[in-house]
C-alpha cells in the first residue's frame, strides 16, 4: 500500500476506483473460504467445544487493529516528511477501519472470555492495551476533524499518530508488567499447537480482513479526495 503516496490525487482517484472492487471481491472469497475451514473442516476443540471458533474473528481483528495503526502512522510520517496531501488523506482513510477492527477485537474478546474465563472483561495486557489503542484511534479521528482548515487537521493528527506509535509498545509492556505482578493470568486461549484446519481458517480470515481493509480505505479516500479537491477542474469534470 505504501507506494501510492507519490501519485497525485487525480491519478490515484482513478487508480483506486479501478482496484477497489477487486479487493472487496477477494475479501468476500477469502471470508467464504475462511468460514468454511473454520466451521466445516476444523474440528471441535477438546477443551472449549464450539465457542473457540470466535478465534476466527477475534485474532484476525486484533492483528488488523495493530497493523492498520502502523499503516496509518506510516502514512502520517510520509505526509509530514514530504508534505503531501494524499498521504494525509490515506492516513485519515485508514483510521476508522482500524478503529472498527479494534472494537471488534474487544467485543469478540469479551464474548469469548465469558464462557472460557468466566468474565466478559479482564484487565490483562492485551485487552487493556487494545482498549487504549481504541482511544488512540478516536483521538486521531477527533483531532483531524477538530479544525476548520483540513491541512491543519492533517498535520496535527499525523504528529499525534507518531507520538501514539511510540507509546503503543510502552503501553502494552506496562500493562503486561502490571498484570503479571497482580495476577499472572495471561491466559493461553488455544492449545499448545493449533490444528492445521484451525490455523488455515484463521489465516484465511486475516487475509480476508486485510483485503477488506484495503477496499474500505480506498473507498473512503476516494470520497475524501472528492471533497478536498472539489474546487479543481478534474473533479468538476466528473
Amino acid at each position: 500500500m505504501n507506494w501510492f503516496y507519490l501519485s497525485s490525487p487525480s491519478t490515484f482517484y482513478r487508480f483506486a476506483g479501478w482496484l477497489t472492487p477487486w479487493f472487496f471481491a477477494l475479501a468476500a472469497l477469502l471470508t467464504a473460504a475462511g468460514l468454511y475451514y473454520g466451521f466445516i473442516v476444523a474440528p471441535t476443540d477438546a477443551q472449549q467445544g464450539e465457542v473457540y471458533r470466535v478465534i476466527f474473528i477475534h485474532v484476525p481483528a486484533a492483528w488488523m487493529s495493530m497493523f492498520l495503526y502502523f499503516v496509518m502512522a506510516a502514512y502520517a510520517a510520509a505526509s509530514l516528511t514530504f508534505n503531501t496531501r494524499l498521504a494525509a488523506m490515506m492516513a485519515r482513510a485508514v483510521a476508522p477501519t482500524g478503529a472498527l477492527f479494534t472494537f471488534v477485537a474487544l467485543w469478540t474478546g469479551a464474548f469469548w472470555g465469558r464462557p472460557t474465563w468466566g468474565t466478559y472483561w479482564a484487565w490483562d495486557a492485551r485487552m487493556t492495551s487494545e482498549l487504549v489503542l481504541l482511544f488512540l484511534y478516536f483521538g486521531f479521528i477527533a483531532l483531524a476533524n477538530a479544525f476548520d482548515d483540513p491541512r491543519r487537521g492533517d498535520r496535527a493528527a499525523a504528529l499525534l499518530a507518531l507520538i501514539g506509535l511510540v507509546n503503543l509498545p510502552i503501553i502494552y509492556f506496562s500493562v503486561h508488567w502490571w498484570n503479571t505482578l497482580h495476577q499472572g493470568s495471561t491466559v493461553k486461549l488455544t492449545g499448545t499447537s493449533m490444528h492445521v484446519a484451525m490455523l488455515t481458517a484463521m489465516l484465511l480470515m486475516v487475509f480476508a480482513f486485510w483485503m477488506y481493509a484495503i477496499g474500505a480505505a480506498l473507498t473512503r479516500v476516494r470520497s475524501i479526495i472528492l471533497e478536498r479537491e472539489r474546487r479543481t477542474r478534474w473533479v468538476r469534470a466528473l
Partner: protein
Amino acid sequence: MNHGFYLWMSYGATALALAIEIAMLVAKRAKSRRLIEEERDLEAQD
C-alpha cells in the same frame, strides 16, 4: 448460556459493524457528491 449465544453475538456484532462501516462509506460518498454539486452551483452563479 450455551455456546451458540456467544458465537452469534460475536459474528453478529462483526457483521453489524461491517454493515455500519459500509453504510458510512456510502453516506460519505453521497456527501462528497453533494458538495461537488454545490461547488458547481456556486460556479454557475458567477
